[in-house]
């Protein structure tokens, strides 16, 4: 099988490869290619899934098991589904695929400068003839997966989640062939933000479209979103990339990762910050501009003002550490017009400018 693809880093994923990687990975690839850096990672293609399936020789038995199950008989369904998933988890990867995945994960660890970098392993399903939208989120996702052996196990876990009771019932009812469903998997770094927050691609104080307004705080962005920390605020010009406003707030608390006893999976909790961090800007100038550029790229990509969530990941190399977590359209100012409505006659307009000078106009505005 010389031409089989194993895995593709998100930033290398091109449109032609989307059928190989499923919906979730395709969207991460699209963002990455549009200059919207998402947390790094890679897609495990459906080739890996298909080859493992083929190699196992178990698919006829699985099909037999689940096609004929009476989906109204809950006990029978649970038992069939569970046996099917068990069989999927036993699938073996070809040596070539496995070696490539080990290498891909090792590269990700190297990029992050961490051994066994924690990742999220998410299902990214494809169904040849139907958009799987109605099923998005129904397949498994594993957070804080550490080490390649665990990653490989969770990849199989994602595959196996094709055979939950609900998935089986759904396909049987819709008349979809159980064999024509493929499963790719997204392996993506868990963010460990030094700072995080939100950004608007306009100035929410006055609707100025030339500004990008950033709220930032130490650690995770939860506090900025919920309002339980007072963030630093920056206004960046989206053409000149100059920082036109900085308000550094006292940040007494932050949402940070804390270890949970007896679990490898840490938790985000609100903690008090040491005094020497309280009044320090949570972003450097370079980071501020990088986040502004990321927000502007999202605005250009989606074609309207955006409200984004971002993070500066402590594990990523400087210059590549600003990542986009979420983007949605801005809804308040976007609906309003922002016309200047100046006189079209040049000399008449100049008279207006001279008689009612800008500096006088600006003075009259409330501070």
């Amino acid at each position, binding site marked *: 099988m010389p031409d089989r693809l194993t895995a593709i880093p998100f930033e290398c994923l091109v449109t032609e490869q989307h059928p190989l990687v499923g919906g979730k990975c395709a969207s991460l690839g699209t963002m990455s290619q549009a200059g919207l850096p998402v947390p790094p990672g890679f897609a495990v293609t459906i080739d890996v899934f298909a080859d493992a399936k083929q190699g196992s020789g178990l698919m006829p038995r699985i099909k037999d098991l689940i096609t004929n199950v009476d989906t109204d008989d809950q006990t029978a369904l649970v038992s069939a589904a569970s046996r099917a998933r068990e069989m999927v988890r036993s699938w073996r990867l070809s040596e070539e695929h496995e070696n490539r995945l080990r290498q891909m994960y090792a590269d990700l660890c190297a990029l992050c400068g961490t051994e066994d970098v924690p990742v999220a392993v998410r299902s990214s399903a494809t169904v040849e003839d139907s958009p799987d939208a109605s099923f998005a989120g129904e397949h498994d996702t594993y957070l804080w997966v550490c080490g390649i052996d665990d990653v490989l196990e969770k990849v199989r876990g994602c595959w196996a989640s094709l055979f939950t009771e609900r998935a089986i019932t759904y396909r049987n009812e819709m008349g979809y062939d159980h064999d024509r469903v493929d499963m790719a998997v997204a392996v993506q770094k868990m963010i460990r933000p030094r700072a995080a927050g939100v950004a608007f691609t306009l*100035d929410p104080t006055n609707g100025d479209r030339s500004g990008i307004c950033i709220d930032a705080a130490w650690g995770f962005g939860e506090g900025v979103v919920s309002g339980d920390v007072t963030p630093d605020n920056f206004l960046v010009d989206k053409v000149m990339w100059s920082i036109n406003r900085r308000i550094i707030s006292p940040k007494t608390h932050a949402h940070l990762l804390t270890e949970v006893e007896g679990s490898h999976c840490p938790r985000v909790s609100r903690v008090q910050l040491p005094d020497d961090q309280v009044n320090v800007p949570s972003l450097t100038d370079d980071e501020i501009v990088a986040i502004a550029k990321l927000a502007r790229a999202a605005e250009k990509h989606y074609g309207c003002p955006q409200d984004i969530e971002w993070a500066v990941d402590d594990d990523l190399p400087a210059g590549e550490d600003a990542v986009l977590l979420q983007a949605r359209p801005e809804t308040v100012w976007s609906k309003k017009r922002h016309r200047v409505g100046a*006189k079209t006659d040049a000399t008449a307009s100049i008279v207006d400018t001279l008689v009612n000078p800008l500096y006088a106009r600006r003075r009259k505005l409330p501070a």
Partner: protein
Amino acid sequence: MADRFPSPFEIQTPEGAEGWQELYTYSSLFCEERREYEEGAFWFHDGVHWPEALTPWDTTFLEFALASLSQYNTRHYIIPPAYGVDFRILNGYVYLSPVPAPPEDIESRVPLFMERAGFYFGNWNRLYDDWLVKIRDLVKEMSELRLEPLPQFEDLEVITSGVGKGSGNELLASYHRLLDLALTLWQYHFEFLNLGYAAYLDFFGFCKTAFPSIPDLAIAKMVAGVDVDLFRPDDELKKLARLAVSSGIDDRFDAGDVATTWEKLKSDEAGRAWIAEWEKAAEPWFNFSTGSGFYHSDKIWIENVEVPVGYIADYITKVRDGVDLDRPIQALHAERDRVVAEYRELLDSDEDREAFDAKLGLSRTVFPYVENHNFYVEHWAHSVLWRKMRDVGKVLKAADFIVNTDDVFMLKRAEVSDVLWDLYAGWAVGAPSRGPGYWPAEIERRRGIHEALKQWSAPPALGIPPEVVTEPFTVMLWGITSDSVSAWLSSGEGGADGELSGFAASPGLVEGPARVIFSADQISEIEDGEILVAPLTAPSWAPIFGKIKATVTDVGGMMSHAAIVCREYGLPAVTGTAFGTKNIRTGQLIRVDGNTGKVTVLE
């Protein structure tokens, strides 16, 4: 915070400068007869053009410039809300006061302005082409004026041609003509400038309304030209440096003194060819002042050849090191187009985009004048004028009226007329003039007064600050806004917190050791990686911008020379800090934030 500046009548005469008033035109002094008007007005020190105490003759350009500026506002274009800018000399320093039009007259002035300004805007390019001819003709006529010592006997030809008048008459007439031409020069200067600024301000206002947070320098960048005559002298130096290297004669610039370099150049064909290129560049481009062009003491390249030759030697070193001296014209054009396209796209509607295009178009039409006039007037024509005045000085020196040629600048403009009369009359009669017995001592006395005035530190403003500064040219030309006035009021005590604020004139943030420089003579003190702190900078300082990390000036706004050159060189600049040279000492570590206009003394 104080609510007013000192009254001009409270200002004391510096010790040793008693009688300073006699050095200046009677009409340019604060005086009891006009006290009520003068005390009710707001006066700011013009450190942009006249940072130092003036000598008597040097006030000529102050008076000619301000009267001409005012005349175009008040009498030619009838700028609806603004009369002229009044001017005074106090302790040798220049104070200006914008005069508003009476509010009740503004409306009736509008149609007059529309018709007159409309004509200039509608015919701008043709009129500007005519201007370039007018200014060259004027410089040519000035250059040809004869200001020479009077002969023992008139030439026989004066007799045989029946001309019927003599050299003394011509000397007096030439001086008077020189003054007339100097005033005409300043009329020409303001023929376009006020309107040019008005058009720019209109575009500026549009951008600020559409994008309240848009940086001033973004607006400047959209309008500013890439090929500007003000950069020509520096470009010519680079060209000459490259020529020296490519013709293999660059080692001759290692000599260290100009005479030796020139001697070596003249010794062969390649060297002579280089000199020919030098001469081509020198007229007119090296009629370039190392200062603002408003002081007789400003050095002019063509008369102080060691200055441009020193710069050429520096550039030669860079060429040898493989440094690309070319300004990235293509990239600058592309960047300007990008900035315009991006802001344009962010506007609300096609209607706004149409207005934006029209205003940007007009601004770009008027801007070549705004950017280029400075070379023609303050550099080229002034260089010729100073030369001609030195010719007058030589005439007076030859007749023992004065000791040094430059003593002529210790005479008032109108006095020179009387002095030449004295000289002429003595020559005509064949009997002693009064001058040789009178002027040397009087000039010594005046020099003492001037020295005392030079030590005085002029406060940034006098009188009662206006509620808002609205006069457009005050804002554009001098960078004086309501904000800077209140900053002066609050930081008059000396900025104890180690922070200064001014215009964010060129973006970027750097830290480094300060180098405080008060005049062009100190330029050579500047070392690599220092931050230049100066009252202001001049275009001819361009070659040092390759050495420094940032610039801080006391005076000037977004369009000041320091701002323009720093943007060109990609260096942070904060202009108009008022107290930079006062509060910062050479060697102190400072932080310059060209994004916010803040300067912080770190140690």
